């Protein structure tokens, strides 16, 4: 059986205490911004890092791989669901978009 060709991915989850969306970085720690996530272009590396990230049950819930592409400032989501996770809801300026705005202010 042939495997589907691997597409680049980030590792993401929700933080156990806050519930915030978090991403796995190249330094093997959890970060808040999608752009700071490590982008894995090879299956083996993604699987190996996924195993390490997924073992951090005390920090992360629902660890998963999500498709992403490299953009100007770092990895960007491919699917609209991941775009919402990376920014926040569209009806209020809450969630990540607000965090980013207040961090930049």
């Amino acid at each position: 059986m042939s495997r589907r060709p691997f597409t680049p991915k980030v590792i993401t989850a929700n933080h156990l205490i806050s519930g915030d969306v978090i991403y796995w970085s190249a330094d093997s720690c959890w970060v808040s911004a999608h752009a700071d996530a490590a982008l894995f272009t090879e299956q083996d590396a993604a699987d190996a890092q996924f195993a390490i990230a997924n073992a951090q049950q005390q920090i992360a819930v629902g660890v998963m791989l999500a498709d992403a592409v490299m953009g100007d400032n770092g990895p960007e989501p491919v699917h609209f669901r991941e775009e919402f996770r990376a920014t926040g809801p569209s009806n209020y300026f809450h969630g990540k978009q607000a965090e980013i705005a207040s961090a930049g202010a």
Partner: protein
Amino acid sequence: MYHYNDFDRAFLNERNAQFRAQVERRVAGNLTEDEFKPLRLMNGLYLQLHAYMLRVAIPYGTLSGAQMRRLGDVAAKYDKGYGHFTTRQNIQYNWPTLSDVPDILDSLGEVGLHAIQTSGNTIRNVTADHFAGAAKDEIEDPRPVAELLRQWSTDHPEFQFLPRKFKIAITGSPNDRAVTKAHDIGLRMVRNEAGEPGFEVIVGGGLGRTPMVGKVLRAFLPKADLLPYCEAVVSVWNTLGRRDNKYKARIKITVHENGIEKISELVEERFNTLRPQFSGVDQELLADIEAHFQPPVWEASDTGVFDAAYATDPVFRSWVDTNITDHKRDDHAIVSVSLKAHGDTPGDATTEQMHLLADIARDHAYDELRISHEQNVILPHVKKSDLPAIFEQLKTAGLGTANIGLASDIIACPGMDYCALATARSIPVAQQIANRVQELGVEHDIGALKIKISGCINACGHHHVGHIGILGLDRAGVENYQITLGGDGTETAAVGERAGPGFAYDAIVPAIERLVLGYLDLRTDPSETFLATYRRLGAAPFKALLYPEDAKHAA
């Protein structure tokens, strides 16, 4: 309304203490997420897209002023200053942290509120007619029975691991405002030939991926037999219901696969076994509960102030015409407070709004509030003479929108703005439709119209029973919206029919606009509603409005 006794308080305190310890064990690493998840779900705590979500039950939609005030306090202290009222008469908080949830539950427990069985494969919050106890058309207030069902189903040892969730709705009126035919069990109060009140028991209704209108299992069930009969129904399904496939686990599938006759046979058999085991303690309990639901001591009032304001103030008159329903007393009224201000999120209320509603309830409405499945707040008992003053107060907090039952009074689930299950957004579609009908200024001309939007096939937004239903889907990584037409959630329940191919996110609002404006030309006169016109003409002219290109080719 029902007030907790020592047993209720002790039970709730114990449950909350258990959950606090479970959260501590999870944080300390003594429970894995797999172990913790079912425990948090039993207490209404989900993990959604951006954060945890806590779903708090509002049993049969009834709240006191103090309870509403506390809901507002919790929103301010532990969330972002608002809460979201749902189609199941619950409230959801979208941003609590795990570490705060035990404190939130304790705070809610102080006013007799909880989040137990708002999730999981259990009997969920019993929903009821939001006009219960006030409606002119009512046989009896169904809430004592709903409270009895709540007590019976809470922590019921036989029903903690059901094949799937189980939802019961109840109405005391022939006009069904509780969507009873779309529930696992729907209870409609009726009278027998001797004039005694009892229930028509409807079973196997539901929305979701396989929408079905419930079937009558018993045309008349004496009131006293309700608990053993419901226990028989759930018990039969608990044994027979499919556990191999979650999409086929709900009782609607069990009824569909086995036939209503077979289910009826099994239920009656089980009922005959169970009936003698109910020694009458349930009826003693019911009598006690009924005492809690005695109507308030009515304050008679002269309607002169109301009549004068109605005659002279067109804004007040418009609000009365849409948002007020006849009360069983002529000098009182039922007020529906719209949580659908044009452009706002359907069902959301801020802390300030909740506090104001609590104050109005305390000062003018015998301290009672209701949450409707249509995501609005009801003041069930208001003296007509107080209506002008209440309207002025509501307007100061953005609660004076005169749109109940109109095109902008849209049900919308949280959709992909919040929900982990969603396949598309619902809220912005609702906001845009509401804004558009306001811009066009046609809302009152269109009249009664129910638009209902779900952001996935699970149908929390009741799209199947919307006159216009909108279902948001993910089609190859892009949001796409299917329209259904002719749905009906009342006593004449019907599942809407799919109109045709879906619409892109930026095409769905124009499609709805063509539909509602086109309807104005199709109706015989302004008294013929959208639904009545659809039923008279069928789908064809409405499809032509939605797909003008196809209509051209066909011509």
